[in-house]
């Protein structure tokens, strides 16, 4: 039986009396890629930020390896966060640091490795995402696709167990979208990682996902293996896949 590495129980979150998450229940299987699919503004980013403790829920629990992270204090939460790597929608690279310094940042913060050893890891991680010789460039000198790849290299720097992707292919052209999708697939397979991605992109979803969950009006309306999801009889799912306005 596949182990559940993350368990979300009855998650609620409101902003200014507007309920964004209205009781989300979801389990993330270890070593698989789960995609949270949903339209713009349904609270996907709010949801993924809860998974890593960037936001506190109004109600509900999130268990990571059976530890409820919603009740942890900052220092304990930091320990749990070392299991995670996260690729942000706009990469969130530190614009005052070079690419090499960005990728090496978490290694420098959490290990006592020498500068040479860190540089070696940085080169390896950049090679894994298909980028070489750009260590001295600044993020402002990179294209959108390259920034995502550097962001992925940084997210993988500490060899995390879980990788989170916030809209990994939004705003990219089809070629760069495929490059990022392939990278996610290869990264997941190589390390047997648990990946959680949120997106509204159907192509990306069906390329990278083992399991798909759909968020609609603050709750999970459908969840299952990718093939099961495609064939779901749920009218909300079918409307979304067909690009028609939902109910």
């Amino acid at each position: 039986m596949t182990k559940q590495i993350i368990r979300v129980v009855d998650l609620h979150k409101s902003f200014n009396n507007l309920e964004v998450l209205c009781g989300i229940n979801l389990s993330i299987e270890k070593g698989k890629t789960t995609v949270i699919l949903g339209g713009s503004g349904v609270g996907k980013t709010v949801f993924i930020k809860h998974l890593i403790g960037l936001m506190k829920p109004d109600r509900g629990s999130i268990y990571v390896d059976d530890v409820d992270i919603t009740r942890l204090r900052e220092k304990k939460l930091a320990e749990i966060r070392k299991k995670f790597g996260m690729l942000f929608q706009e990469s969130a690279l530190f614009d005052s640091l070079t690419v090499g310094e960005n990728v090496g940042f978490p290694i420098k913060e959490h290990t006592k490795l020498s500068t040479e050893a860190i540089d070696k890891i940085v080169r390896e991680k950049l090679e894994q995402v298909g980028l070489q010789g750009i260590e001295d460039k600044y993020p402002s000198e990179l294209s959108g696709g390259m920034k995502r790849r550097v962001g992925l290299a940084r997210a993988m720097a500490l060899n995390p167990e879980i990788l989170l992707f916030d809209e990994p292919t939004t705003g990219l052209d089809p070629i760069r979208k495929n490059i990022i999708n392939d990278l996610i697939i290869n990264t997941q397979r190589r390390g047997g990682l648990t990946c959680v991605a949120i997106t509204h992109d159907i192509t990306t979803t069906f390329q990278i996902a083992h399991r798909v969950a759909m968020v609609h009006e603050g709750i999970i309306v459908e969840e299952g293996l990718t093939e099961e999801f495609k064939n779901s009889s749920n009218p909300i799912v079918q409307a979304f896949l067909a690009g028609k306005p939902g109910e």
Partner: protein
Amino acid sequence: MVSRILFRLGEICTHFVKEMGEIAMLLLNTISWMFTPPLRIRNIFRQMESVGIKSALVIILTGIFAGMVVALGSYTGFKRFGGESLLGMTVALAMARELGPVMTALMVTARAGSAMAAELGTMRVTEQIDALATMAVNPIQYLIVPRVLAGIFMVPILTIVCASIGILGGYFVSVGLLGLNPGIYMANTVEYVEFLDIAKGVSKGFFFGFIISLISCYKGFYARGGAEGVGKATTEAVVFSSVAVLIGNYILTSFLF
């Protein structure tokens, strides 16, 4: 009409209380992370350079012209009753007790406080602060503690620079341009200005450095809404810090002197 005014008043009060609460929480967290290892020496020195060294030129210019104008302005009044000899003491006291700390604080607010708010605000809206947290690095410890420490340590030093240069500027105008006797000018300055005057002025610098960096960091750290939000946060940081400095100066003067 009345209910609308009351509603708006309620909103303003709620917003004020919320902001005060957030600043208090940020203050407590900053103090707590200040004494939690690792001490990020390199970050602290980088911020000290930004707040101190890079503000030095503007502080020197401000100080020298402030001292000169106090001398020039006071001379007219003193001359009317033959009290020109008191000019040195007047300039020195004004610079050490009031103008030095306040002018320094306002200049640091304009140069370094606005930079703090804009930098942190940009990091917030581009998710760089969230990225720090996901890498298990506490953003308050990494970003805010070095800035607040830099404010606390550098503003008093800049206050001393500003006051000293201002006194020199006053001397230049009084002796060089207005023809006062340099011996009498200096003797009066040394006789009437006490060490406590300087110490109290410097202690104002500690307070102003702390309040400017805390308000600027708060505004930037909690910025929302893209480029417009960063602009708003920067403006508010400068306005609120300047007002806090002026109000704080009155309160401190009434308690200290």
